[in-house]
């Protein structure tokens, strides 16, 4: 009995010591307040969720960082007011995570030279304003490998929100990856006309499955709708944006491509703490861990997993699928032999590669 009491006393003393020591320890560490604005909800299993996950990883890597967040921030002057409020609460680093937030963040960068801004997807530069994004197109090649191996009908379905160059590039790399392992694989594309018209995403998924597609993927804001619609019709699915959508399709989930912003956000926060921040236009992919292949679903056999992982490694080491000769789906040579398209050309696609069934314009 006495022994127990002694242990308890010792335990309490240790606890008290820890509590006493904690604030002192925290004061010794440099603490940084980070602001983040999201265009949607962070529970979307998609783009915004990926941003949130990156910031959580940053916070874990650098204990003592404080995070101020705002969801559903429109791409209007409203976003400037919200970021201004974050600065007043002490934010020294702000992540403006949607394309349309760029100008508003840039305005604030001019009036607040002591605050560092990082914008996702843009091009503007200032001493305290950098931008970053994932190099998605090449990485889609690995998804194509998974789809090409898993399809039985040799027909893949791709739901595209709006056929901008970047999205078409994703489709093209996907088809080329599929063909690299299955020369008969074709990709059918359906455009819904919006990034989040969910009822139409369901109808588009159904239409693709009706036309024979047995592996479905998408480039829309959130993969949740297409993944669930494919699952309900016993088709396979491949996700995009966040790697967390797999729980929505326990049977049909193959894999997915997600943004993993954590390492970049951690490095940026560390450079701000150390006072060494330098603006850059950062475009990184699988090789730099800004993108990652999602965990495989139960349906994917070991040999396919190996092939996909090998393809992802190859891309990570610099393999560029957009190396000529590449013919479009009308037979015109678009990238000549010996020529290759790098990251700066990814917005320029207005044609689909051979094997894609669809019109880009």
């Amino acid at each position, binding site marked *: 009995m006495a022994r127990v009491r002694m242990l308890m006393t010792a335990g309490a003393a240790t606890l008290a010591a820890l509590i006493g020591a904690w604030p002192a320890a925290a004061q010794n560490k440099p603490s940084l307040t980070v602001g983040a604005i999201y265009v949607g909800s962070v529970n979307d299993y998609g783009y915004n969720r990926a941003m949130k996950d990156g910031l959580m990883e940053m916070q874990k890597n650098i204990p003592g960082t404080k995070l101020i967040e705002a969801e*559903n921030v429109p791409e209007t002057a409203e976003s400037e007011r919200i970021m201004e409020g974050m600065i007043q609460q002490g934010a020294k680093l702000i992540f403006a995570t949607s394309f349309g937030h760029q100008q508003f963040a840039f305005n604030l960068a001019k009036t607040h030279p002591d605050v560092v801004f990082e914008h996702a997807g843009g091009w503007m530069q200032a001493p305290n304003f950098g931008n970053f994004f994932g190099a998605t197109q090449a990485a889609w090649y690995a998804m194509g490998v998974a789809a090409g191996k898993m399809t039985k009908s040799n027909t893949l379905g791709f739901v595209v929100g709006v056929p901008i160059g970047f999205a078409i590039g994703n489709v093209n790399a996907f088809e080329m990856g599929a063909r690299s392992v299955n020369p008969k694989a074709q990709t059918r594309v359906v455009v819904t006309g919006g990034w989040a018209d*969910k*009822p139409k995403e*369901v109808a588009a998924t*159904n239409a693709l499955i*009706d036309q024979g597609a047995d592996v479905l993927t998408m480039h829309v804001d959130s993969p949740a709708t297409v993944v669930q619609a494919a699952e309900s*019709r016993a088709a396979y699915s491949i996700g995009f944006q966040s790697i967390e959508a797999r729980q929505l399709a326990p049977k049909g989930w193959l894999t997915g491509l997600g943004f993993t912003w954590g390492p970049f956000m951690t490095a940026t926060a560390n450079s701000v703490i150390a006072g060494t921040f330098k603006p850059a236009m950062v475009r990184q992919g699988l090789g730099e861990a800004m993108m990652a292949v999602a965990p495989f679903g139960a349906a994917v056999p070991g040999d396919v997993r190996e092939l996909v992982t090998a393809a992802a490694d190859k891309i990570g080491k610099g393999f560029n699928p957009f190396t000529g000769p590449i013919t479009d789906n009308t037979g015109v040579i678009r990238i000549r032999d010996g020529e290759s398209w790098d990251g700066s050309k990814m917005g320029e696609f207005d044609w689909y590669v051979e094997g894609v069934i669809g019109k880009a314009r």
Partner: protein
Amino acid sequence: MNATLLAGVLSSSILSGTSLLYGTLGELIGERAGIVNLGLEGIMLIGAAVGIAATALTGNPYLGIVAAALAGAAANLIFAYVVIGCRANQLAAGLSLMFFGFGVSALVGRPFVGAVIAGLPRLRIPGLGGGSAGGVGARLLEYDILICLAVPTAILMWWLLFRTRWGLGLRAVGESPSVAYAAGRRPERLQYQALGLGGVLGGIAGAHLSVALTLTWAEGMTAGRGFIAIALVIFAKWNPLWAIAGALLFGGAEGLQLQLQAAGADVSPFLMNMIPYLLTLLVLVLWRWNRQSAAPAALGRTFVGVE
């Protein structure tokens, strides 16, 4: 057009036409009582958000539908109070209701973005639904309860409007409230009833999109379907039976353009996405020749009472 394409268009016209039909019927009954409700889009959004919220909280999609119907009715009765009780302008009040619906649904739906729900179950006709789970044939035979009840609802509404004393009174109010009043009817009470019922249907229309079709919530997910439903009321000449055809036609046009894209038709996807709207315009133009007295005569007018 091959059989797969036809079956695909048919099944997707039924799937996406269902929500439109409920929405159209909801608008139609209000307009029959003389009240234009441009806020239907907002009512549908509230239905979609409340439907998913209640389904996620209770785990029961049927309760989700009921909650959505009640929420739609409540929101439409606020509108009713503004335009009947306070005699506000119907068009302005309707547009305000739409924005109100956007806001309320965003607020209600926010915690449920990304919620995983069990959708409205598909019912199998005993002895028929033998096809494979993913097949087109199975899709033509497996429908949720709201799809099964959509056409009967339209027929019931037709019967109520054209074969009952209550419906006669309601239509009389839409044609001339003062005459109806003189005949011993109470125009305002009938209008409240019509809008309450319209709200129930509008809420169900939204809930079908979120709880049965997509199993997800996103802000503004109705994407203009409320306004298409308002146009379909005109197409249907304020007749619930014609509304069935209108909803199927529009749902089919959307299904057709997506099926054609999937089949690899040589048409720009931008043009494809315009097909349902071009069709709506075309139909409204063609309908012009037969305009005799389809619209309720007192539609949009404010009844200020009889001295």
